[in-house]
């Protein structure tokens, strides 16, 4: 009988509240850390160093003849300059040794990674600033870390569908499924 009375009184609500608060606080803090794993780029690529050499953005990021976009330079392009080591940076040495000489493409981590089922045309978005969607890596010396969702495999910065849709809606562009999916 005593026990029953206890549970009827304030004692019933307190464990509930403790549980409520603890779980809410704990999960708010811990969950984002568990669900994303942090990864660094395979090569510490410095945009600033390349810009200092007088390179244009469009030297590596350009439209091909068919309107498709070459977002990342291939080894062949890099090899136009990096046949031999050009500087003392260990990152460059690592690139030349581990990738260029072995003919392996660098597995860059893409911050705006979109899955295969999305068709994104850079050409159709030609009028926008790159930094409207991409982080401003152009001025970075060390690329920022990449956060990968452990369940979905997507980057944390991957634009979600509702973001695409919102912009399309605001710009009066069709939001038909096949405008963006393949």
């Amino acid at each position, binding site marked *: 009988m005593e*026990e029953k009375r*206890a*549970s009827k009184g304030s*004692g*019933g609500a*307190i*464990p*509930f*509240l*403790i*549980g*409520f*608060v*603890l*779980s*809410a606080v704990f*999960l*708010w803090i811990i*969950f984002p850390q568990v*669900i994303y794993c942090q990864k660094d780029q395979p090569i510490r690529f410095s945009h600033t160093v390349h810009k200092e050499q007088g390179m244009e953005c469009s030297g590596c990021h350009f439209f*091909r003849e*068919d309107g*498709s976009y*070459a977002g990342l330079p*291939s080894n062949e392009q890099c090899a136009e300059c990096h046949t031999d080591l050009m500087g003392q940076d260990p990152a460059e040495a690592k690139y030349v040794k581990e990738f260029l000489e072995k003919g392996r493409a660098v597995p860059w981590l893409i911050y705006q990674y979109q*899955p*295969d*089922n999305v068709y994104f045309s850079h050409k159709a978005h030609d009028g926008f600033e790159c930094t409207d969607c991409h982080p401003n890596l152009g001025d970075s010396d060390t690329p920022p870390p990449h956060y990968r*969702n452990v*369940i*979905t*495999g*997507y980057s944390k910065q991957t634009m979600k569908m509702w973001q695409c849709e919102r912009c399309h809606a605001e710009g009066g562009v069709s939001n038909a499924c096949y405008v963006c999916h393949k």
Partner: protein
Amino acid sequence: MGLNRRRFITFAVGGAVGSLFTPVIWKLTDDVSIWTQNWGWIPRLKKGADSAVPTVSKLCASGCAVKVETVGGAPYGTKGNKDNPLSGGGICPLCASGAQLMNSPARVKGPMKKTGEGKYDPVSWDEALEVLAAKLKSAAGGDGKALFISGDDSGTANEVFSAFMAKLGQSGFYYMPGEAQAAGRAWRETMNGSGQVGFDIEDSDCVLFIGADALDSWGPTVRNQKAFDATHPLGAEAAAKYVYAGPVQTRTAAVCDKWVPVAPGGAAAFALGLAAILIKNGASASAADFAEFKSLVLAKFTPGQVEKMTGVKAAVLADVAKTLMEAQRPVVVPGALGGGAAGFAAGAALNVLLGRFNAKGGMVALPQAPKVVSGAMGPAQALGNDLAGYLAAVAAGKAKAPEVAMVYEANPVYALPQAETMSAGLAKAGFVVSFSTYLDETAAGADLILPAPHPYERFDDLQTPYGLGRFTYCLGAPVAEPQLDVRSTPDVILGLAAKLGQDLGFETFEDVLKAKVEAIGGNWDELAAGAAFTRSGQVSGGVSLGAATLGQAAFPAKATAPVAVAPVMRLNVGSGHVATPPHNPTTIRDTELKGSVMCVQVCKATAKQLGVSEGSKVKLTGAGGECKALVHVFEGVMPGVVAVPLGFGHTAWDEFSKGKGDNVNKILTARIEPGSGLTTWAGSTVNVAKM
């Protein structure tokens, strides 16, 4: 306040409710659904520049001029090359699978040496070539000790092979039997023709195919189809009439204006029956043997006699003759699976009688490209060598078995008529070497496998594939680097030649091809960019009508069993050289193959006569072997005939073809054609028994 059960539960409930006010549940629910779009075991797509690289594909018998679609340099798709007259943008169902066949599980990954029955060890190229060089050295001296079989009858590679053989003192260089061989031999030996015979279908207004399933598997299929396309504009009246004569309503027959059922083995008689009508209506030719020909057809090939031999009613025959006579530019395209000279010669004679030899839209004699490798065998001689006849003789012990047999891009163990006899003949060879891209039946039994690159990984060429009406040359350059330990066979042979102290005049096959291009007057860069080199002009000269041979060969063979066999080749199933590619099984109907059993087709009348019905299991027994099949009743087959599909029944390759159906080459009966001496298997007959 201690923690009792009730408090703990309350605490847990609180925690659960609390979690609902965090993103956990909602984010997890969402992420799980995103995870289902992105499962780790589902392959990802490759990114990179998309391009289409021209080359030639030699997967089908005649070769296709293709454009290989690549992403980031890796081939993934194949389409036709619009700028090449051989293709016109179209493609055959075999070459459409080209990029997939590049990565096929059936590919030989590197040189292999046989170590026991069905057992192989990988070896290095150096070791393998050492072994082969030693074998060839010991085989030198005395003709007949080495044998070379080539499955490619339009490539310059053959010059390398035959010159190599000649330097070894060997004349045993053979092509796999096919239309080109039967036609080539009949043209030269029976009709005294010169050059390479072809048919200008494009410019004809009336095409009669006698046994040539030209819009699906005969000759340069895609070019034939393009010619059909051009004369049959969409939504308008056709500019040409197409007639198909043969025992089965093939895919060609399906789109022709008329299908004339002609019994298997009756093609020559049918053509001569038409010739008789033409002659009666005043047709003549300046050929030396016209008189002999005339008396032959008027005496032995009257409509009544033709009906007995072919099953074609007099009225139908007259109707076909009328169609030919009324046309402005008719052409007769003879061809039937089954070798022999008579079928071709009779059809060619018909063209001559119609005044269509070397005429626009008619039958033409084309010049041949000059040889560039000294000592190479000319096309006349190479086509003249009869592989099936030779192997049959070896099998029967009538000819000496070679000590070394080399097989390039060919599958004689599987694809020769009366296959079991022929492969027994090949098995008598002391040492069999297979230069094959795929682990086919021949490779699977060879002593040494020296894998060849896939057509997209090598230099190769196409010289006027048989059937074309115009001299045409196409070049294929590699689209991608080979991913496997393979070497181009002509390069291997050139290396071997050097090893054996021969001088063939070239170091690499690329140099051979460059010389070839120069010899024909073409431009290497343009050709490598996918253009075709074509030249108009024909080889003039009188021809005979082949009366002497036809008088013996044009009569159907005497039946030895109750049901005549009509083999049907469907290119989507595969060719003699390439088995069903991975994406093609879905294109094969369930009336052609059910599970692992193939279907043979008979009409209702034949089914009734045989006591079988739709779905009955039957055994077909020929002179050299037997096959199992299911019956599919199809009214597009002549009574008394069973239509059997070629291309099934592989015992090697991969799961897309292995163990599916039966190899009908086994039940075809190879015999020597009277008059021509060629091996033929047209008009084979079988027993059909319900199982």
